[in-house]
């Protein structure tokens, strides 16, 4: 169901954790709340779920105002980073708990549990207790428990953080598949940009209690609203060069970079260059020395200390193109660069 936050604010004592947040999640959509720890994303999640009181603003789910509704009456499924399975109950009873609370008749509940177990491929594990399950299996049980009641909204709080890298990759796809199959509106809270980009339809990036940008992953990557957003997306991260606006473009070190934008003359600007856009063949050449070379198997990662006093990273496929200490003059494509003003806003 459609979720809407209007001017939502939340304080803990004197600390403002979220201020004036507006967000719309369309029905069946999966959106990520992405940001560094302490940015207010989990607080937002708990406000939607009903565990935190809303200080200001309004929250609606499927058009119904739930701002003052207790968590028990919101029909929201939550999956926690720690899974929060009830340790003294078997997987079956864990999944069945929300149904038991709602007073569902035993046989119907068992059917619903089995159906959910089928979907998540955990049929054989149902009689085990959480202590006897691996992290990935616990994760699936937790998902089943959140989904078995057919929730209006599914909230995922860092669901993959406790899994190892391999399993995380599998579960990313799994969660997305199940979310699609059940057609559940979902919000994913994460600090991992890869997770957000790969799993979600849209991303809302938060910083110190405010939403900085909401966009689809590709758009946000290509057209970040600010340096903060640009830095958050992409690995290895984007790097910046100091620049100044001049007649017909930007001055970066000795080079004149063509730029169609406008800025007052001589204001300090910066340009961001992503590692995949920097290499031996770019049109704008900058002199520097190779400071590090790392092999990542399929590709090579370079760090180049530029003569103008900044460091750029480069990712290039195939064999090594330079050695450490080698003087190079690598370049980038001005069409791909991002230009920011002194406050970090993209121009």
């Amino acid at each position, binding site marked *: 169901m459609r979720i809407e936050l209007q001017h939502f604010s939340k304080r803990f004592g004197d600390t403002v954790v979220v201020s004036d947040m507006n967000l719309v999640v369309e029905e069946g959509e999966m959106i990520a709340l992405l940001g560094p720890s302490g940015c207010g994303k989990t607080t937002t999640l708990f406000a939607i779920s009903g*565990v935190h009181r809303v200080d200001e603003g309004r929250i609606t789910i499927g058009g119904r105002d739930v701002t003052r509704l207790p968590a028990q009456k919101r029909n929201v499924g*939550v999956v*926690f980073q*720690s899974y929060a399975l009830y*340790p003294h109950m078997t997987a079956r009873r864990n999944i069945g708990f929300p149904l038991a*609370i709602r007073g569902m008749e035993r046989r119907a509940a068992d059917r619903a549990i089995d159906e959910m177990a089928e979907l998540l491929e955990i049929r054989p594990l149902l009689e085990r207790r959480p202590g006897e399950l691996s992290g990935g299996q616990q994760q699936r049980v937790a998902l089943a*428990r959140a989904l078995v009641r057919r929730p209006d909204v599914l909230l995922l709080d860092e669901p993959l953080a406790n899994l190892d890298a391999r399993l995380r990759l599998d579960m990313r796809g799994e969660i997305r598949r199940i979310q699609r199959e059940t057609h559940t509106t979902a919000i994913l809270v994460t600090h991992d940009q890869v997770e957000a980009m790969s799993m979600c339809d849209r991303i809302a990036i938060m910083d110190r209690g405010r939403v900085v940008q909401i966009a689809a992953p590709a758009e946000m990557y290509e057209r970040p609203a600010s340096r903060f957003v640009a830095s958050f997306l992409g690995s290895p991260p984007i790097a910046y060069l100091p620049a100044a606006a001049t007649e017909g473009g930007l001055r970066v070190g000795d080079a004149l970079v063509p730029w169609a934008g406008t800025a007052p003359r001589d204001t300090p600007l910066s340009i961001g260059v992503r590692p995949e856009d920097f290499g031996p063949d770019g049109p704008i050449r900058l002199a520097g020395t190779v400071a590090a070379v790392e092999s990542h198997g399929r590709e090579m990662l370079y760090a180049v200390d530029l003569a103008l006093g900044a460091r750029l990273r480069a990712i290039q496929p195939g064999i090594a193109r330079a050695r450490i200490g080698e003087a190079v003059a690598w370049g980038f494509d001005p069409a791909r660069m991002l230009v920011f003003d002194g406050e970090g806003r993209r121009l």
Partner: protein
Amino acid sequence: MPNRLRSLMILGLIGIASLPLIVMLAFLVIDSFSASPPGTLIPDRFTLEHWRFLWQTLPGRPSIWTATANTFLFAGATGTLLVAISSTAGYALARLDLPFRAFFLGGVLVMHAFPTVTLIIAIFLVLQVTGLYNTLAGVVLVKTALNLPLGIWLMKGFYDTVPWEIEIAGVQDGASRFTVWRKLVLPQVRPGLAALGLFSVIDGWNEFILPQVLAPRSDVQVLSVYLAGLISDDSRFDFHLFKAVGLFYVLPVTLIYMIFQNRLMSIYGGGTKG
């Protein structure tokens, strides 16, 4: 220094420091089953005469079985009451959005430091006035009350170890806070409940001053008072008899202690009086 030698030295030194205790405990058992000639400690014959209190009532004392039953009742009742009351109050203080929570918590801590003697004088007078003087119910209530700050504090500590996520998950699953406590949280602190219960049963079993002051009459006498009475009369010490009764008295505690030692360790380290 090789580890073996070091261990032996340490054990030796601790052994010397433990001598008074070792001697006391050894002779507690030996003397209750034997007789020794005056002026020596070495027994010369085995006897059960010191255990006569089991089948005959000692002059001027209530029957040992009355005292034993009273002690069981006293210890069991205080244990049950304490666990019941602390487990609800501890949860309220640990997890519920209670008005004046900090004040209550501070109060619990300050009360924990309250000297028993300051209360017992007034309690003595209160029980006299209310007619609960010389009743087991009165002492049970008092003992529970005095242990309550500790019980609440320990239970709060146990609840604090239960992850918030479990409670949040329960609330999200639609359960009321009471159901969350009853069905989800309480099962997680069962070991804590057991430890507190065991501790309080032992503590009640051992309690002396409260029954002595508040319920000394013979039909409500507990074993500690019975035992103390045996040698309060300074002229006629019969330590053999005393030790036999003492051994009888300490048996249940020994049993509990041997089985649940590790559980109790956490409570005795968690801060109790003495």
